[in-house]
Structure formats: structure tokens, C-alpha cells
């Protein structure tokens, strides 16, 4: 997650997701923003906090096999720039989604629950906790 261009790719993918959703004729703008937020957080939760191990063999005698991607990042060091970036991005998306849904209660509730599902696993206190 430190290599060159991966943050830009991540942002581009999120923007493309939003544009594609926005292009679906029968979806309203608030709904699109909530969908963007929920789909983004779902994908982040899946790839960073659910899938364990590595999709290829590593020479560490299986140490990484039981760790999620988030726990393997930067060899487990907390508060690195990648971790900060990946923690802030869903928050920014949540703020945008709240703004564009005009702080409607239902949307806000859905967006906030979705945001918590990707924020809570990122807490350093929950590193390695099952």
C-alpha cells in the first residue's frame, strides 16, 4: 500500500464507481452517494479486514496466513502514512455523502453504520483481535 500510484488508483476507482452509479438513470443523487459510500466500505472491509493471508506463497513459513491485509501492512507498524490515508478516506466519503443526502436521517444512519464497519477494525487496539 506504499508503492507509487496506489493511492491515486484507489481514489480513481472510487470516483469511477461514483460516476457509474450516477449514470444509472433511475437512481437519485442522495441514493447514489449512499450507495457509493456503502459499496466502497463493503469492498474495503472485504479486502482489508476479511480476507486473511496472501494470494501467493510467502517465504515467512505461513506467518501471514492468519493476518488480514490491514494487519500485514507495513509489517504491523501502526500510524504509518498508508494507514492514516486509508482511515481518513472513508471519513471524507462519509462527510460528502452526508452533505449530498442533505443530512437525511435514514441515509445518515446507514452511512454511519457503514463507516463504523471500516473504522472500528482499524483501531490499533484491535490489531490481531478476533
Amino acid at each position, binding site marked *: 500500500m506504499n508503492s507509487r500510484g496506489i493511492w491515486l488508483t484507489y481514489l480513481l476507482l472510487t470516483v469511477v464507481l461514483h460516476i*457509474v452509479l*450516477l*449514470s444509472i*438513470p433511475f437512481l437519485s443523487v442522495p441514493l447514489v452517494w449512499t450507495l457509493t459510500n456503502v459499496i466502497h466500505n463493503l469492498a474495503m472491509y472485504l479486502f482489508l479486514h476479511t480476507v486473511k493471508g496472501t494470494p501467493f506463497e510467502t517465504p515467512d513459513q505461513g506467518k501471514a496466513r492468519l493476518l488480514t491485509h490491514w494487519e500485514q501492512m507495513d509489517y504491523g507498524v501502526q500510524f504509518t502514512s498508508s494507514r492514516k490515508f486509508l482511515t481518513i478516506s472513508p471519513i471524507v466519503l462519509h462527510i460528502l455523502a452526508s452533505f449530498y443526502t442533505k443530512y437525511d436521517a435514514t441515509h445518515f444512519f446507514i452511512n454511519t453504520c457503514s463507516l463504523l464497519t471500516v473504522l472500528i477494525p482499524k483501531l490499533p487496539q484491535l490489531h490481531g483481535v478476533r
Partner: protein
Amino acid sequence: YQYLLITGIYALEPWEKSIFNSVLFSAVAMVVYTSYVFV
């Protein structure tokens, strides 16, 4: 050829390529249509 290489679908099987192309095509068509309507 460049399109196949850059998207990576060069390595996919024909039926996977068709799936990818139809998804991409419909997404692009939707974006173009909506932009047109919006503009």
C-alpha cells in the same frame, strides 16, 4: 491489442473477455447517455 494489454484482459479466456467488454461497454454507454442528458 493495446486495449487488451492495458486492461490485462489479454490473459483472459474469450468468454471472460466478452463479459468484461459488455460490462465496460454498458457502463460507458450509461455514463455517456447520462452526461448527454445532464448537459
